[in-house]
């Protein structure tokens, strides 16, 4: 602003001999610039305030939603356990549906809470030396019932003698879990026209963990529906779901990959993918060995 006032002063004295007029013009222009500055600062403050309010709102809502969801989950657990009174097989089946739905909702709320923390840069990370091998193995074990149900086979290849590295186990479990979950979830869409209608091709997921230079690299490759080319640039955006994904799976928040990417990058890792529609996707990420 000082520079522009001086510039106007020198331009003014060049065109006018009356110093009072020049001073008046300089004053007028300076006042105008102060007003512009003020309104720009105010707008930025307002934007920052809105972003903070939005993040606080999501955080409060998520906490408030969690409470009744936990109640619901535990009470359904209690009923299913038969400890209160005997529950028939039919009733148990309906209670299981209630349980699955409350779990789904809980997962969504947790994702929203994590997203709000990522955005507010307040997601806590507790880095400790741990084994990525152990993490991957336990995750594969956990999704086993799910893979059986979706006729998918997981092949795991792990290079020998991989070192423990520094990362937050719980967060990384979520990141890898989200990628693996997508690989299995979006297998089902490859429909093969058969004589008796549409039969689904068997899903193959390949998980490879290896050392590349001074980094550990995890690759998750599937033969699923793939990501259409026009959607690929948006795939890590929050709430984004590829056009073919919504057709195959109605459920899904579009937060999984956004969360995975945020966690991996916060752990000094890099994530990338290659994908072809109807052929499959390979998501890979690496983490520094330290």
């Amino acid at each position, binding site marked *: 602003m000082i520079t522009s006032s001086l510039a106007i002063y020198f331009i003014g004295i060049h065109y006018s001999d009356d110093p009072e007029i020049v001073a008046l013009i300089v004053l007028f222009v300076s006042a105008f610039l102060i007003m512009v500055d003020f309104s720009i600062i105010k707008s930025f403050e307002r934007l920052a305030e809105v972003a903070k309010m939005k993040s606080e709102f999501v955080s409060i809502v998520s*906490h408030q939603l*969690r*409470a009744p*969801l*936990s*109640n619901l*989950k*535990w*009470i359904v*657990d*209690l009923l299913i*356990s038969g*400890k*209160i009174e005997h529950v028939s097989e039919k009733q148990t089946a309906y209670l299981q549906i209630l349980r699955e739905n409350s779990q789904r909702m*809980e997962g969504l*709320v*947790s994702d929203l809470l994590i997203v709000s923390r990522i955005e507010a840069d307040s997601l*806590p990370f*507790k880095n400790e030396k741990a084994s990525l091998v152990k993490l991957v193995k336990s995750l594969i074990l956990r999704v086993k019932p799910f893979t059986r149900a979706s006729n998918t086979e997981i092949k795991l290849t792990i290079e020998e003698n991989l070192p423990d590295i520094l990362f937050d186990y719980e967060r990384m479990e979520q990141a890898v879990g989200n990628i693996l979950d997508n690989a299995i979830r979006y297998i089902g869409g490859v429909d093969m026209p058969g004589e008796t209608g549409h039969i689904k091709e068997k899903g193959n997921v390949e998980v490879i963990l290896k050392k590349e230079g001074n980094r550990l690299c995890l690759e998750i490759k599937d033969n699923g529906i793939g990501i259409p080319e026009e959607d690929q640039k948006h795939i890590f955006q929050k709430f984004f779901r590829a056009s073919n994904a919504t057709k195959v799976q109605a459920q899904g928040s579009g937060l999984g990959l956004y969360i995975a990417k945020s966690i991996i990058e916060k752990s000094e890792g890099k994530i990338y993918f290659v994908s072809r529609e109807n052929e499959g996707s390979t998501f890979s990420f690496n983490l520094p060995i330290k």
Partner: protein
Amino acid sequence: MKKILFIEDEAALQKAFGDILSTEGFQMISAIDGEIGLRLAESEKPNLIILDLILPKLHGLEVLKGLKENKETRNIPVIILTNLGDLENIEQALELGATTYMVKSDYTLDDIIEKVKKAISS
């Protein structure tokens, strides 16, 4: 019969826990806010306290502080059972002397009963 004081403002959870803990052979005493919780801890001398953090009248961390400052209640194990999973709350509760910290959404009812049994027997 061993006594468990459950300081929790959610009526649904009070009922569910009351039923399940009685089937497991425990006696449950309910407190629906922090102040009642502190009072009952002193008068009833339970074997274990399950404490929520977001409570009317007195925040759970204040209750925990009060419990640990009182020589009558200082040695009663306290399990924190809450929806708050922030590192800050966890660290503060453990520093104040909580035995275990559990985030509600991460555990099933069976997990919690197991932790209760473990904490009460040790």
